[in-house]
């Protein structure tokens, strides 16, 4: 056995490897990304590992493994499940042979996501089991258990960690000598593997009956457990996910309250809960995102005529949105117990703190692309549709170049919608290379087919930057460790039938502005590929130099908002620890007072 101090996501990866997983697929997304990155880093002989182009694809690739009896793991963030929901809904009906665990990382807060959706509710919607770990240690155990339940009941199973489980660190002990679990291979049987209304009808009834059985089975599962149980206790707290860890810590001072963990929210372990709630008059449900367990307990009360007062989000004892914490749980418990206690405030009159919104890095080529479009379209009515990735940060002042951001790939198609409702304006879409492959392609086909007049700017920095530089089809490297042919974005567009395709280095300011102006004067679908690598994947150039000619007019600061240009004792200066010598500021300086960095 080996003991390692690892991140929750790594614990999930090691758990899946220990369970003999054969196929691992996913798409990067905070807070789930490090699961696949861990598997890539540690020995994983005979495992097929891939960054799929999106979550739907990942789910489908893994499905074939599951049909063949092999164990598979699919990873994504919560919004990724929306993309993958089409195959998953059907797969829930068809079922699996080999264990299939779908890790969907939820993000209460949200800390780096578009939504605060609750994957437990999604699992209920799909009628499949879901495990909800409270810590990296539990996540390691649960992912292995999830494979067993998946095979026992022939169903895909979701493991739903939240950010604080994914990104927490703990010591994990595991057997280093893991290997792929042997599997039978695909056995053809069209009555089983081809979804038809008749099959869905039959399986739907089977699934509902089966879920009752799973609920009973879960009632003796080790992570559905009671602590602090006392015969005299009339009050209980039910907590799920990381809220259980917070409640456990909050209740260290109060051993009179029964604490109940529900580690498998769906199917609900009814018998376990009925027994745990015997003799209890009042129960407080502590959870993040939706009042999922709270509503389930209310359902249980109705079904079994329990005389139980249920408190939680529905009664304003727990916040409806955002994260929980030890102190928020303490507040909830105090309110539940009728204890009037205000929070201690240790520090008063705190001075105004500088705001630190996330910004594009110094030298980021996206800044140059946005600024070129801004200059080219000055005083012309334009719509700027953003997308999901680093370039969402183009919304920040002074660039202010993102008017909308909805979902992966949404900018490409939204720009078309704007064009159809306002023919006078020029509609732009900004999308990164990885996002283009994930879900931008079909939008371009739509634009060509439906005759949109749009300019699609592909910000090609040769990596998936926001989530930590994962390779994608355009990078020429995959997770099997192979160098492969790069999928050429320009050729793809040509094939679709885009007539105007311009590739330009965004750090060449004049050429970029000219390219935008040219495209704005042509009808049809135009694509500008702004191609320059992410600063994090190449060696930086020497910093630029501010010469004597600089009169600190601050134009560079006010136009670009580059974090490497700072004010020092009233003068504009360059932070040499941040500047990578992209030379954008030198090109826009009205007095030509910035000396360009020479390529080494």
């Amino acid at each position, binding site marked *: 056995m080996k003991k390692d*101090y690892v991140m929750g996501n790594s614990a999930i990866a090691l758990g899946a490897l220990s369970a003999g997983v054969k196929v691992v697929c996913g798409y990067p997304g*905070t*807070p789930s990304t490090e699961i696949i990155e861990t598997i890539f880093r540690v020995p994983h002989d005979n495992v097929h590992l891939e960054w799929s182009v999106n979550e739907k694809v990942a789910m489908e690739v893994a499905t074939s493994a599951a049909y063949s009896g092999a164990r598979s793991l699919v990873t994504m963030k919560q919004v990724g499940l929306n993309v993958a929901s089409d195959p998953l809904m059907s797969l829930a009906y068809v079922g699996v042979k080999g264990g299939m665990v779908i890790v969907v990382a939820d993000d209460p807060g949200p*800390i*780096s996501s578009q939504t605060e959706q609750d994957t437990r509710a999604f699992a209920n919607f799909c009628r499949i089991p879901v495990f909800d770990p409270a*810590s990296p240690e539990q996540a390691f155990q649960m992912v292995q258990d999830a494979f067993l339940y998946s095979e026992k009941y022939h169903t895909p199973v979701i493991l739903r960690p939240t950010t*604080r*489980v994914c*990104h*927490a*660190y*703990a*010591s994990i002990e595991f057997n280093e000598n893991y290997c792929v679990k042997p599997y039978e291979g695909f056995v053809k049987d069209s009555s089983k593997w081809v979804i038809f209304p008749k099959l869905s009808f039959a399986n739907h009834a089977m699934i509902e009956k089966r879920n009752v059985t799973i609920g009973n089975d879960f009632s003796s599962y080790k992570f559905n457990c009671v602590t602090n149980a006392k015969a005299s206790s009339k009050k209980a707290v039910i907590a799920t996910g*990381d809220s259980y*860890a*917070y409640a*456990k*810590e909050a209740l*260290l001072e109060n051993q009179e309250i029964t604490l109940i963990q529900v580690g498998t929210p769906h199917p609900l372990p009814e018998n376990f809960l009925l027994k745990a709630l015997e003799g209890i008059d009042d129960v407080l449900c502590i959870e993040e995102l939706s009042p999922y367990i709270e509503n389930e307990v209310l359902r249980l009360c109705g079904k079994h005529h329990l005389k139980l007062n249920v408190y939680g989000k529905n009664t304003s004892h727990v916040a409806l949105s955002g994260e929980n*914490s*030890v*102190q928020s749980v*303490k507040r909830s418990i105090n309110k539940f117990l009728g204890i009037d206690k205000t*929070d*201690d405030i*240790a*520090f008063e009159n*705190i*001075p105004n*703190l*500088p*705001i*630190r*919104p*996330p*910004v*594009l*890095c110094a030298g980021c080529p996206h800044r140059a692309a946005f600024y070129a479009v801004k200059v080219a379209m000055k005083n012309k009515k334009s719509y700027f549709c953003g997308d999901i990735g*680093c370039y969402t*940060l183009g919304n*920040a*002042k*002074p660039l202010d170049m993102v008017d909308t951001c909805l979902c992966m790939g949404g900018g490409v198609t939204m720009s078309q919608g704007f064009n159809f409702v306002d023919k006078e304006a020029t509609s732009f879409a900004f999308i990164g290379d990885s996002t283009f492959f994930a879900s931008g392609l079909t939008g371009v086909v739509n634009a060509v087919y439906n005759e949109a007049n749009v300019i699609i700017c592909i910000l090609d920095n040769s990596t998936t930057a*926001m989530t930590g530089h994962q390779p994608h089809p355009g990078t020429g490297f995959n997770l099997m460790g192979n160098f492969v042919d790069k999928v050429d974005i320009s050729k793809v567009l040509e094939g679709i039938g885009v007539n105007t395709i311009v590739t330009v280095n965004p750090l060449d300011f004049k050429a970029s502005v000219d390219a935008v102006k040219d495209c704005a004067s042509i009808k049809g679908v135009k694509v500008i590929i702004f191609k320059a690598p992410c600063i994090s994947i190449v060696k930086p150039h020497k910093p630029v130099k501010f010469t004597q000619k600089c009169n600190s007019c*601050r134009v560079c*600061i*006010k136009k670009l*908002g*580059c*974090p490497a*240009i*700072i*004010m020092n004792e009233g003068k504009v200066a360059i932070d040499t*620890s941040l500047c990578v010598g992209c030379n954008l500021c030198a090109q826009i300086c009205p007095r030509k007072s910035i000396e360009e960095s020479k390529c080494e």
Partner: protein
Amino acid sequence: MNKDILICGVGGQGTVLASKLIASAAMSENNIVHSAETIGMAQRGGSVTSHVRIGQNAFSPLIPDHCADLILSFEPAEAVRNLKFLKKDGAVIVNSQPIKPITETLDNTGYDGSNMIEYLKQNCKTCIVVDGKYFSDNLGSSKFFNIAILGVACGANKLGLDKDSLIKQIETKVKEKFVEVNKKAFELGIKIGEQNAA
């Protein structure tokens, strides 16, 4: 041992390595350790924190309010931002060198961290102010401040960890070609810490 240590700064300052070294040194001394990091959007020039929790009663990966024994701050305002985590009699070790966010540069408010340092000195029972410039002048780069501040904490007896167990972790966890300069940073920090030990 029970100890909660919060490490804070701005994305890119190397707070994660500092927290990893503390965690692994604490484990090498047979403690149970949990920790958590900010990862994601906040990394890009935003405020970042690492929470290191040593002891068997730490179930939450994040330090609850008013529980941190020590705040190691790589930037003046970030120390103030995270004061709600500090125990009444907890200690703060803070870099006096500010990192100016672009929002400040745009509005030209003149933020230089000095009012933050003043506030910390007046309101914290123990506040050790470290000049990051001293280390970058001596070590040739500001990149080694993360290890230097560990040295300061160690020298001032605020970590509760043995100096040698930290050095051992530097030797094993840091990239080989940077081990020597990081050890030097650590030793420089220890000297500063010893001068400030209560």
